[in-house]
């Protein structure tokens, strides 16, 4: 299958310290990839380089064959490289329904309209309803985001990103901070993501990683030290040394 997302030899140094070194990866539509690594491994820097929030020193990022270098984050979003927005980046005074309306209308370039309401745009409403249903947010649809449960806010992040119809979705710890009782909802939402969407998930929770990913990439000190099947990752000596530590021991013992 053709690659939808390609990163070639991405490099970035901060004041002489190489935080990203020759990082390359390729993803095809439908891929479910987890990006893991110890704190300070350069995961966030990598995401920022890819989304255009940071400028790489060298390297190429392409989406569906188109080079993204030189594009700003907004242009990358419009082309289909979408990062799930962390809760702190949602709009606290707006409802989930309005979030999705904004995303859908923005995608269609229709937000400039002063007249007519989105309540009278059936195709927009339909799409919003479908997203709310997919993520189980119907009950919270008309409450201000500031007033809904944290788990629902995190689900909204995913719905919001999906409303932009991404080709590649970057998820940043989608279950972090969510109470245990609500994590199954997040997991089923992740399982229900569109089949042709390529998903790259940064996650610390190894249980979630093993359940979600077909492929795991381990980043340590700015370089990829492992790229392979989840079953292999715990057996890799470099990974165990760099990151997994006691967890790998527990798991292989189990």
């Amino acid at each position, binding site marked *: 299958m053709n690659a939808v997302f390609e990163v070639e030899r991405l490099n970035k140094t901060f004041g002489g310290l190489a935080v990203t070194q020759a990082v390359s990866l390729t993803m095809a539509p439908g891929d479910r990839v987890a990006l893991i690594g110890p704190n300070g491994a350069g995961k966030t820097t990598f995401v920022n380089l890819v989304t255009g929030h940071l400028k790489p020193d060298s390297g190429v990022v392409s989406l569906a064959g188109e080079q993204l270098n030189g594009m700003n*984050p*907004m242009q990358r*979003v*419009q082309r289909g490289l979408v990062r799930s*927005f962390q809760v702190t*980046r*949602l*709009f*606290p*005074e*707006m409802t989930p329904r*309005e979030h999705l*309306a*904004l*995303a859908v*209308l*923005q995608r269609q370039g*229709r*937000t*400039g*309209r*002063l*007249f*007519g*309401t*989105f*309540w009278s745009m059936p195709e927009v409403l339909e799409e919003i309803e479908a997203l709310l249903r997919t993520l189980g947010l119907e009950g919270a649809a008309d409450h201000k985001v500031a007033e809904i449960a944290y788990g629902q806010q995190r689900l909204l992040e995913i719905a919001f990103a999906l409303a*932009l119809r991404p080709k590649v979705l970057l998820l940043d710890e989608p279950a972090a901070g969510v109470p245990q009782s609500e994590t199954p909802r997040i997991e089923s939402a992740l399982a229900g993501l569109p089949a042709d969407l390529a998903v790259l998930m940064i996650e610390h929770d190894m249980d979630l990683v093993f359940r979600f990913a077909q492929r795991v990439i381990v980043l340590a000190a700015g370089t990829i030290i492992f790229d392979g099947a989840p079953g292999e990752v715990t057996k890799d000596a470099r990974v165990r040394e760099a990151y997994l530590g006691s967890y790998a021991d527990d798991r292989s013992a189990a």
Partner: protein
Amino acid sequence: MQSVLSIAVDALAYGMVLFVISIGLSMTMGLMRVVNLAHGAFAMVGGYLASYAVRDLGLGYVAGVVLAVAGTVVIAAPIERLLYRRIYNKAELIQVLMTIGITFCVIGIANYVFGPTLKTIPLPEVLSGPVDLGFRSIAAHKLFAIVCGLAVAVALWYLVERTPFGVKLRASVDNAPMAAALGVRTKSVYAASFAIAVGLAAFGGIVGAELLPIEPYYALRYMVTFLVVVSVGGAGSIGGALLACLVLGAVDTTGRYLVPEYGEFFFYLAVIVIVCVFPRGLLGRA
């Protein structure tokens, strides 16, 4: 009974004029976070332009109002582009200094161009006489101000809460970098909101000219009144501004009727009480 009704009508008309002018300021302060002391100056510019169009050029009232509102927006647009954009997200003191500077410049220019005298905007016949409501008659222009106030409240609520533009505006206000990341051109959204706010100021200045007469120091004379309405109502809240205007309009008008020697004492007493009890304004955003 007659005087109670007179007070009520006057209070309502005065409150609605305050509302039409101040709601734009509430938008700029609550949504765009700019303390725009020059807001009254734009109301004044609207009044001057309308007076010039209707009285001096002899245009019809409606044409004069439309031209004056459009003219004020046209005058304000480059000011937004060149001056206001520098003070979005800046400290409030900087905003106060910049906009008070703009106010005095506008006063100076108005004084130079139109002279220091009071300007009237001749009303069309239909608005100049009394309207018989059956049980009593009231001045048509007061009724007109009341209707305009209600129409502005409904239209603005619809724009902000129901239209795609409103969603985009609220998103830009809630979280500008996030809205920008989605592809919302926040600068254009701000410019459009500013234009709407200024247009409303101009419209209020014209409709309210019978109650708040147009003269060069208008911008300064009512600056505090408009600010007070916004703070009492809660910046950014349409319902809050409406409530504040009705309450303060009632207090002020009643005070002036019954104990005129106290001047604006009761108006500001009410303001102090409301601010103590509702520090965020009657319906302010958190």
